[in-house]
C-alpha cells in the first residue's frame, strides 16, 4: 500500500504522481481539464513570496494552485 499525501505537502523540487482527486463538482472538472488524472506527474516548482499559492508543473504547463485546491489532490511521492 503506497502512502498518499496531499499535493500541498510536496516539497519544492520534488515530484509526485496523482492518485486521487477528492474535489467534487466544478473544481474536479477544472482539475481534470488541466490534465490532472490518475498517474499524472506533478512537480512542485515555486512558492509565492507569501508562501501560497504554489506553482506546479503539470503536463508541460506551469499552474499555480492555492493550498486549499492542492489539498484536494492526493499524490504518491516519486
Amino acid at each position, binding site marked *: 500500500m503506497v502512502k498518499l499525501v496531499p499535493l500541498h505537502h510536496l516539497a519544492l523540487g520534488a515530484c509526485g504522481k496523482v492518485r486521487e482527486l477528492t474535489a467534487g463538482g466544478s473544481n474536479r472538472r477544472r482539475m*481534470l481539464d488541466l490534465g490532472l*488524472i490518475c498517474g499524472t506527474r506533478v512537480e512542485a516548482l515555486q512558492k509565492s513570496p507569501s508562501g501560497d499559492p504554489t506553482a506546479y508543473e503539470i503536463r508541460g504547463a506551469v499552474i499555480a494552485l492555492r493550498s486549499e485546491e492542492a489539498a484536494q489532490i492526493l499524490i504518491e511521492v516519486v
Partner: protein
Amino acid sequence: MVICGQEHYQQISPETFGMSFYDEDMVIALAGNPNTGKSTVFNRLTGLNQHTGNWPGKTVSHAQGKYRYKHKDFFLVDLPGTYSLLANSAEEEVARDFIYSGIPVITVVVADATCLERNLNLLLQVMEITPNVVLCVNLLDEAQRKRIKLDLSALSKILGVPVVGTNALDGAGLAALKEAVYQLALGETRTNPLRVTYGEELEKCIGLLEAYMQGMVRGKVNRRWVALRLLDGDGNTKDFLKYFFMKNGCDVSHVLEFADQMIIEQQLDRESLRDHIVYCMVNLAEEISQQALYCEKSDYNSRDRMIDSIITSKTWGIPVMLALLGIIFWITIKGANYPSQALAAAFFWVEEHLTDFFYSTGWPGWMHGLLVLGIYRTVAWVISVMLPPMAIFFPLFTLLEDLGYLPRIAFNLDNYFKKACAHGKQALTMCMGFGCNAAGVIACRIIDSPRERLIAIITNNFVPCNGRFPTLIALTGLFTAGTLGGYQSVVASLGILFTIVLGVGITLIVSKLLSTTILKGLPSSFALELPPYRKPRIGTVIVRSLYDRTLFVLARAIIVAAPAGMITWLLANIYAGEFSLLRHAADFLHPFASLLGLDGFILMAFILGLPANEIVLPILIMSYMAAGQMVELDSLQALRSLLLANGWTWLTAVCTMLFCLNHFPCGTTLLTIKKETGSAKWTLLTFLITTATGVVLCFVVAQTVGLLRLFV
C-alpha cells in the same frame, strides 16, 4: 416525436449569436486554449477588418472579422480561450454552443507548440462535435528555441485532420493555414477524425443511447456526442441539449429519461463517468504527443524556471515588482516632461493666433471665451498633459504584459487576495485599471465566481488610472519642486508608487469588508497558468499600445473635455449678483470640503470632472483664475504660485491626492459597471463605496493633522 438534425440548424440563426454575415460567407470558428497566440492568428488573418462585441446575454466578448482568399469570403469568429468544452464557465458554454450550432463550416483549433499535449485535449473534444477541424500548431519558433521537435505530418495522420504549423507573430505559415481551410471548406480535402474510445462498458451505453435516438433523429446530428453528454452531463449541459432541440421544435425529454434510467440500471455514477471520459481523452492526448513530438532537451523550461525562481521568490518577488513599477513611472515622468512642455508651448502659440483672428474678424467676446478659453484651452491642456505620459507608459506596460510578467504579479499577490476572500486574478484586473478603469472593469470577466467578480469591479477604481496620473504627478511634483534639485522625478515616482501601494491596500481592505458584509462568501477555487516568458516584438508592442490604447483613451478624453471645458467656462463667467455661478457652488460646498482638507473649488472640480478624471486639474485651475479661464501656465512654478495664492498647503495637496485616488469612478467607468453587472444597484453602490472611502480618509487625515497642530 422527432429529434431534428442538421438541416434544421438554420433555425438557430446567426442572430442568436449576435453576428451578421452574408449567406455566401464561409463561417470559421477559431478555438484554442488561453495563451496560445490565438488572437495573434486572428489579427493576422483579418487585419483591421474586424470588430468586437459581446455574446448576447453573456458578459463574454467575441471578436469577428473577415478575410478573402481565392475569391471566397471567410467570416472568422474568435471564440473565448478555453481549456475544455465541458462548460465549466460561461466562456466554455459559448464556445461549445457555437461549435455545436453548425453555423461554423470549419473550426480551427489553435494550439501552443510548446505545450501540445494539453492543447490536444480541447482538439479531441472539438473533433467529437464536428469532423471539420483544422489544427493550427502555433508558436513554432518558441518550440524551436526550446528544441522541441514536432512531426506535423505524423500528427495529421494520427489525428485524421489537416495540421498546419504557424508562427503567427511574423506571419509564417498563415498562407498554408488559409489554404488548408479553403480546401476543407470547399470539400477538396476530407477528414477522418480520430475518435476517442471509452472502453467496453461505456461504449455499450453509448451504443444503446445512439440506437435509441436512431428512430427519432433526422439528419446528421452527432448522436455520439449527444449520447456522451447525456451520460456525463450536468444540469447545465442537459439544459443546453433541451434548449437546442426545443429551438428546433423537438422534445428530448424521452431521451433524457432513457439516459437517466440507463445510468441507474447499469449502476453508474456520473462523477466517475466524467472522470473516466476525461481520463481516456488525456491518455490519448499523451499517446499522440509521444508519437509526434520529441524534446531534445529534457530541461527545455529551465530558463523560465530560473527567472521565476528570482522574480517570484520570497526575498525578491515583491521588491522586483515594486522596482519595475517604480522604474516605469520614473521613465514616464522623466520622459514626458520635455514633450509636455513643447506641446503646451505649441498649443499656446496657436491660441494666440486664434485670439488674434477672433478679434481681428470682430467676433463677440463671449464667443472667443467659450470657444478658445473654454473648449480649446481645456482640450489643449488635456492633450499636452496626457499624451506624452500615456505614449510612454502604455508601451512600457504592454511590454510587461507581452513578456508574460502580469500573471506573476497575480501569483505574488494572490495570498493577500485570498485573505481578503477575493480572487487572485483581481490583481490582473487591477493592472488593467492602471490604463483605464473602464478597461479594468471589463477585464473582471476573467473571474468566474460572480461574488468575486463584483468585488473586483467595485474596487477597481482604487487603482489610479491614466487619467489620474497627471494630477498625481503634478501634485507630487508641486510640493517637492525646487527643494530636491535633480532628484525631483525620483521623488515624484516614489510618490506615485506610494499612492499605488496605498490603493492596493485600500482595495484589499474594502474587498475584505465586502466579503464579510454584503458579498459574504469564501474564496473560490484558483488555478492560474504562468505562461512561458516570450520575447516581445517591440514594433508590435508600440503599434498596438499606441493605436489600441493611447489614441483610444486620448480620443475619449478629448470628447468629454470639450463640453466640460465649455460648461466650466460658462459657470465661471455667468454671474448671479456679485459672484459667478461657479463661485456660488464652491462657496456652498466649502464648509464640507474644508472638513476634508480640501476647499470648495477642489470639490467642485471633482464633481465637474465626473465625465473624465483628466479634466479635474484644468477645471480647478480655470476656477481659481479670477478672469474665469486658465492662465498661461508656462511652468510648474506658475501653477505652484497659483495654488499657494489660493491657500494651498502641503495638507491640501495630500488630501487632494487622496481624494483623487478615492472618489467616484468617471462617467465611462460607471456606465461600464452598469453594463457589466447589469444592475443600477451595484453601480450606485460602487459610487457610494468609493466616495465614502475618500471622504473618510481625507477627513481622518485632515482632522488628525489639525489636532496635531493644536498641540504642537
